């Protein structure tokens, strides 16, 4: 951070609505692949765009357990909708990614082709919870952590895509019915790790700079000093959003409670409802499981190794020669929920949940993670904890 721009970072100013066009054009001109919320297949999706007209302006959404609907909203508002099934995850950790192509030449594996280089992405309209999810995945994919917990070489594609990405985050002024970012302390306002942050008002945006890149970008846009009335309105809208969270999750002592609830009766109860469809893992912005598999070109003999998103809700996920480790839905749901809220802490020193609510909205039967976690935490019984620890205490100590 140089001395000249430092005072400009975290400075707030006002950007009129019509500057959105100039912003998108500027980013496209600078060679960015611009990704923003658009309406696709009846949902808000994060997809490439070249003009601001493609943004989901005037579109609102209704979200609840197992329910998602787009509705007409205020036609002046670009970002009155909240997160859809998509997240920026797919641009750093693609759902399907070629690792390389090989030709077997006797005793040599000739590498014909490798993973393509990621484009330079600029994200407009990602939310504070999504930024938090990216920071969680940074740890999973091996960047941004100290050497002590560095598991292996970082994922090169992820690292490149991540380092070149530009983030224009939107602070949520209208949470969805399934949002609980306040409980997870990830939103609704982004505090850091963005280049620019926007809080949308009817006439324009309160824009805050987060990096030198953001300062430079804003310098090319018709921003002006924000009035105190505008700043007050923006912070009032954010305060209101905090109060309107659709869901709540008390995280105090939650990890400890889950750690000793492996045999809680609630797991049986939720297993009766869960379809094990894997929707929650596919929409989750932090889920990172994958499977690499081979495809063969019969004409050339070339082998392509491809990495796909995988879900812990499938049978093959844990399959060994003696069968799947988690053959019951009870075991699979328990693994998923405990991973998100408890064991993620052991693995990556952070929660695996950011409170975006996607798993609740997109669950076809409306299973609510906040409700399940709360039920388990509030009915702690002796029988829930049938671990081997008792055994050790009794005989071995």
């Amino acid at each position, binding site marked *: 951070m140089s001395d000249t721009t430092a005072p400009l970072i975290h400075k707030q100013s006002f950007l009129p609505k019509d500057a959105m066009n100039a912003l998108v054009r500027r980013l496209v001109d600078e060679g960015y692949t611009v990704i923003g919320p658009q309406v696709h297949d009846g949902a808000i999706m994060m997809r490439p765009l070249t003009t601001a007209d493609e943004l989901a302006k005037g579109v609102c959404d209704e979200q609840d357990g197992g329910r998602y609907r787009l509705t007409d909203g205020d036609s002046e508002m670009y970002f009155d909708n909240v997160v859809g099934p998509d997240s920026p995850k797919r641009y750093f950790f693609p759902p399907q990614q070629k690792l390389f192509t090989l030709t077997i030449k006797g005793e040599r594996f000739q590498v014909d082709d490798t993973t393509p280089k990621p484009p330079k992405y600029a994200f407009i309209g990602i939310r504070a919870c999504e930024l938090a999810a990216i920071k969680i995945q940074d740890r999973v994919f091996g960047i941004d952590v100290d050497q002590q917990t560095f598991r292996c070489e970082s994922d090169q594609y992820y690292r490149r895509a991540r380092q070149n990405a530009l983030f224009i985050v939107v602070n949520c002024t209208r949470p969805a019915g399934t949002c609980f970012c306040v409980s997870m302390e990830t939103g609704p306002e982004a505090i850091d790790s963005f280049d620019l942050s926007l809080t949308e008002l009817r006439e324009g945006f309160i824009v805050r700079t987060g990096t030198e890149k953001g300062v430079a970008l804003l310098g090319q846009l018709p921003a002006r000093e924000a009035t105190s009335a505008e700043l007050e309105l923006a912070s009032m809208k954010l305060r209101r959003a905090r109060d309107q969270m659709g869901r709540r999750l008390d995280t105090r002592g939650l990890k400890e409670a889950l750690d000793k609830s492996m045999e809680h009766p609630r797991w049986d109860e939720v297993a009766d409802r869960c379809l094990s469809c894997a929707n929650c893992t596919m929409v989750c912005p932090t889920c990172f499981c994958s499977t690499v598999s081979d495809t063969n070109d019969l004409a050339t003999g070339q082998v392509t190794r491809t990495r796909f998103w995988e879900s812990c809700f499938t049978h093959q996920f844990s399959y060994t020669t003696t069968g799947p480790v988690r053959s019951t839905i009870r075991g699979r749901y328990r693994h998923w929920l405990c991973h998100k809220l408890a*064991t993620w802490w052991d693995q990556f020193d952070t929660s695996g949940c950011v409170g975006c609510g996607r798993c609740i909205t997109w669950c076809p039967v409306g299973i609510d993670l906040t409700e399940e976690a709360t039920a388990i935490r509030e009915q702690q019984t002796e029988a829930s904890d049938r671990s081997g620890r008792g055994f050790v205490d009794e005989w071995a100590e």
Partner: protein
Amino acid sequence: MTQLGSTDRPAPFCGLDTWLPLPARITRVDQENFNTRTFHVQIVDDAVRSSYRWLPGQFNMLYAPGIGEAAISISSDCEQGGVLEHTIRVVGSVTRAIDRLGEGGVIGLRGPFGRGWPVDQIDGHDVVMVAGGIGLAPIRPLVYWVLRHRERCHRVILLYGCRTPDDQVYADELKAWESDGVIDALVTVDNAAQDWVGPVGVVTNLLRRVRVNAERTMVMACGPKMLNRAAAWNFLQLHVPASRVFLSLERNMNCGFGRCGHCQYGSKFVCTDGPVFAFSEIADIFASEEA
């Protein structure tokens, strides 16, 4: 192709984001039983082969080109470089493909992965090894290690169980270990044939024959879930500390370096945190099914 830096254990050779396998030649195949064979594998690249280091209990991802990979523990002597032995039960698509390639075939190999047996803690201990079926494969390098460094431990006991005499893996070696007297080896079978003179019954029956000095005993077990459970329970009841009861666990593995999520066991990634765990590390979840 570079070997990743590591502080406490041999680390894998990795190329292209750790996913590129090293070509390796199958130099010999030994028949162990009706569906199990030991594949002797030699890394083709001379420089990599001569600098490849590993420790007992670590594993490789073996790659059948165009088919896929399987996690297979290394079964040979870690102090004898050059050839790596992998004992494989031919039951799935990858293992069948490797089997079809046979002697002279070229497979891929990534590794070594994981944390193996705690050989650095063995000094001055009685070592009890318990193995069932193909669970002897990851124990075998430990036996070699102990035989090479016999003076570093007191008593060494190897208990092995399998279904029938014909199902034994490394049968000739077991016979030699039983008769040499360098270690106390004992083999039991669930179902005996007429010419079988050894004990009959599950391997856990043999546990009762072991007189344990809990102060200085280390247990290392590998077998099906029930064997691990019985072995752990047995020695914990005899007051062997949970931190000195070690189990090698099996899980579905895809990447080998803690990224793909398949091998999770509670909060552990079996591929990097294990596959060998002290009971004390997994006591919280050991009694739970499907953890």
